């Protein structure tokens, strides 16, 4: 067969279904939306509660969204070189990915850690590694974002200790830690302790940060990972809001003032391909969060009601097959994020599904955002889709569906119980199975995977080969630090940490900062807390 007729054969997919009447999360859409499909919008002003149209009255004209880039992996020295290069290029925000041992609380010397050292991020087992990471970089002049959860309190404490050693006043520090443990139990897996003590650690970190490093964002409540795991857009937003409310309750119970701490809560989502569903998900989320805080907690400060969020365009919506298709997907998703009013956007590289992104693909990902920001004009007015009958209808409906899921969770006893029981985890696994079967059985169309597939060689770039010596080097460095430090001081600091942890009303952060200053390792601090709290036991219900 000639190439041309092969192409024709592939485009003749006659048995593809016509556009469905349902959004990806199952909401039924009118064929043509009209004014009476939705409530008349009386309070629809951006910058005014409940912020359906946006949290800032001047939208992107006032401030464009932040364009996030992922950093790499490897050793602290390599990352340090990369950071210095990026800073010289004018970047002011650095992003730090940690390796799995650091994320899960194991030292590089631990046997479970060995094959994973330095693979998905940098190994930061103690303060000296963090000092190497930021050697020659003024922590007071940059913003650093750490994707860290189980050990967020420790890594944050380490960052503060590092700033102390540089002589940088804590009040100058800015950046983010993800610090969202609830989603780890259901979708990401870097948990350490059981749920309740972990909630305490999260709250302690947020409250300490509010006082000591007020410019720092101590939590980014992420729905992204449950979405990537298989939840629908409605569930993603619902679980995220539920988690957010659980953290709010914990913070209040530990003495926090919601008018103050709520200002530093932010959120994080995926954007998938059902365009209007995504836009409306964000509008509904913004409205709901403000309403819930007003109704349940009587919050009055505007800034405390703001639903600030960042997004990732990519993840499981991208395919390994026909990777260039992903360029289009990421562009569509970015547009949905912009029209949904995101404060920061991370765009995935088109080849992310099969390999480490190349410089070319990483740059194209960034260009996608830049083209949309500077050429497309869609950011010129605030909430340009507002007032569209369909968009207002779908925003209302999405809000209703989200509330239904929130009620289900409440009926189960709340999000913490739902996780301890394994209920939430098995819901997500079921949903993932349904989603997979839907694609397998072609009820959901994914171009290149179950429609318009073609014979193609999968492009393969370099797969990351970590120098095997690195793991050894990192491990032995850790041992050297353990030998050279004042081990009595370490023991005393760990004992004080343990004592504080056994007192429910103590904030653990000052003790963690002290431990970091003695060069106690992540593994040691975690082990000390595990003695008291135990480790999380997965409730497996498949």
């Amino acid at each position, binding site marked *: 067969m000639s190439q041309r007729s092969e192409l024709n054969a592939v485009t003749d997919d006659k048995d593809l279904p016509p556009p469905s009447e349902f959004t990806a999360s199952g909401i039924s859409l009118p064929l043509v939306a009209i004014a009476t499909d939705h409530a008349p919008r009386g309070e629809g002003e951006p910058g005014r509660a409940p912020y359906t149209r946006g949290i800032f009255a001047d939208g992107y004209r006032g401030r464009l969204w932040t364009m996030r880039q992922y950093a790499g992996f490897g050793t602290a020295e390599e990352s340090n070189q990369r950071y210095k290069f990026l800073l010289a290029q004018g970047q002011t925000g650095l992003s730090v990915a940690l390796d799995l041992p650091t994320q899960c609380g194991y030292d590089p010397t631990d046997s479970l850690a060995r094959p994973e050292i330095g693979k998905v991020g940098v190994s930061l087992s103690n303060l000296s590694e963090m000092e190497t990471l930021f050697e020659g970089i003024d922590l007071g002049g940059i913003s650093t974002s750490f994707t860290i959860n189980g050990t967020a309190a420790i890594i944050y404490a380490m960052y503060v200790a590092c700033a102390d050693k540089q002589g940088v006043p804590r009040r100058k520090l800015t950046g983010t830690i993800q610090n969202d443990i609830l989603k780890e139990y259901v979708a990401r897996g870097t948990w350490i302790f059981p749920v309740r003590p972990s909630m305490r650690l999260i709250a302690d970190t947020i409250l300490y940060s509010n006082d000591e490093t007020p410019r720092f964002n101590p939590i980014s409540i992420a729905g992204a990972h449950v979405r990537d795991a298989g939840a629908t857009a409605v569930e993603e937003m619902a679980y995220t809001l539920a988690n957010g409310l659980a953290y709010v309750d914990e913070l209040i119970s530990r003495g926090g003032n919601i008018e103050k701490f709520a200002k530093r809560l932010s959120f994080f989502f995926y954007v998938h391909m059902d365009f209007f569903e995504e836009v409306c998900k964000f509008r509904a989320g913004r409205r709901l969060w403000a309403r819930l805080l007003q109704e349940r907690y009587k919050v009055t400060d505007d800034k405390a009601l703001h639903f600030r969020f960042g997004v990732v365009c990519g993840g499981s919506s991208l395919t390994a097959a026909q990777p260039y298709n992903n360029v289009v997907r990421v562009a569509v998703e970015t547009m949905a994020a912009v029209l949904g009013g995101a404060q920061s956007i991370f765009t995935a590289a088109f080849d992310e599904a099969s390999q480490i992104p190349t410089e070319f693909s990483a740059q194209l990902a960034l260009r996608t955002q830049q083209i949309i920001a500077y050429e497309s004009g869609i950011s010129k007015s605030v909430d340009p889709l507002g007032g569209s009958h369909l968009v207002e209808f779908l925003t209302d409906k999405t809000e209703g569906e989200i509330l239904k899921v929130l009620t289900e969770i409440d009926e189960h006893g709340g999000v913490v119980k739902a996780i301890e029981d394994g209920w939430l985890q098995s819901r997500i696994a079921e949903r993932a199975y349904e989603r997979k079967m839907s694609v397998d059985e072609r009820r959901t169309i994914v171009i290149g995977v179950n429609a318009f597939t073609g014979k193609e060689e999968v492009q393969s770039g370099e797969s990351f080969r970590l120098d095997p010596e690195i793991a050894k080097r990192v491990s032995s460095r850790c041992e050297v630090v353990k030998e050279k430090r004042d081990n009595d001081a370490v023991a005393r600091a760990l004992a004080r940490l343990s004592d504080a942890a056994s007192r429910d009303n103590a904030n653990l952060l000052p003790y963690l900062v002290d431990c970091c200053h003695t060069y106690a390792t992540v593994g040691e601090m975690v082990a000390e807390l595990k003695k008291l709290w135990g480790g999380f*036991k*997965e409730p*497996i*219900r*498949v």
Partner: protein
Amino acid sequence: MVKPRLNRRELSARLSLAANARVCDSLTAAYVDSDDSYRIGITGPPGAGKSTLIGRLASTRLLRSDGDLALVVIDPTSAVSGGAVLGDRIRMEAVAGDPRVFIRSLASRSNLDGLAENLSDVLLVFESDGFKEIIVETVGVGQVEYAVRNLVDTMVLVLMPGVGDQVQAMKGGILEKADIYAIHKADLPGTTQLIAALNSVLKQKAPVAGSWAPMIVPTSVDNDESVDQLNAAIEKHRMWTKSSRTMSMVRARRRAYHVGSLVARRVSEVLDELSPEALTLPPAALYEMVILRLRANLPK
């Protein structure tokens, strides 16, 4: 002379043979009954936290003995696909990595009991390899547990407070057949009521002279002492069985159960082989037909 132990892979293969044996294989297999091994059955409704408790109990028992410990964990099979996800062993992580521990998960399959087919033989394989102690965990409450009652020395029923009126629901069944009642997650509300309800049922049984007085032990995995107390209760029962039963009595009972379950399975096999027409015969005629086939197909 001490018989050489099998390596774990060989043992495992033999366990599979035993678990999958057909009736005739089972009848001719020459498993040697063990004199000095001890079998504990632990059962209870799902969600009571049995598996985690068993893991902790196993830990405790390992500390106090020298020998190896086998754990047989029985999970239900899906009626639709015939498949199963056997997940309970995960909750026993505390002991799973110990080289002295051997955990085997079995699906309950289609055996009339609901119990894993050939469980009798599986236990004998462990014992013939020198395992002095076996814990059998079963799922749920009901017919299954009668079978286990017959196969083990000590029967523990794990209940959790606050789950409706379990005592009423289970009366007349396994409830009255247990030797020890573990009230798990005893820190939850409803414990007192549950214990009271249990006591009232147990008092209604006319005590036979010299019989065992069932013990009720509140447990919680967060409370090491409570696990020790459960273990102490088990040991107490164990001592009592030694003094009040003879091995020959026990073996007789177990043999009766074993052969009974083989006959029942064989009946089921025979019925499966019959034609649809045969099944329309009047009951007496069908009965005769089954008996004839049972006799005709005696294993060699």
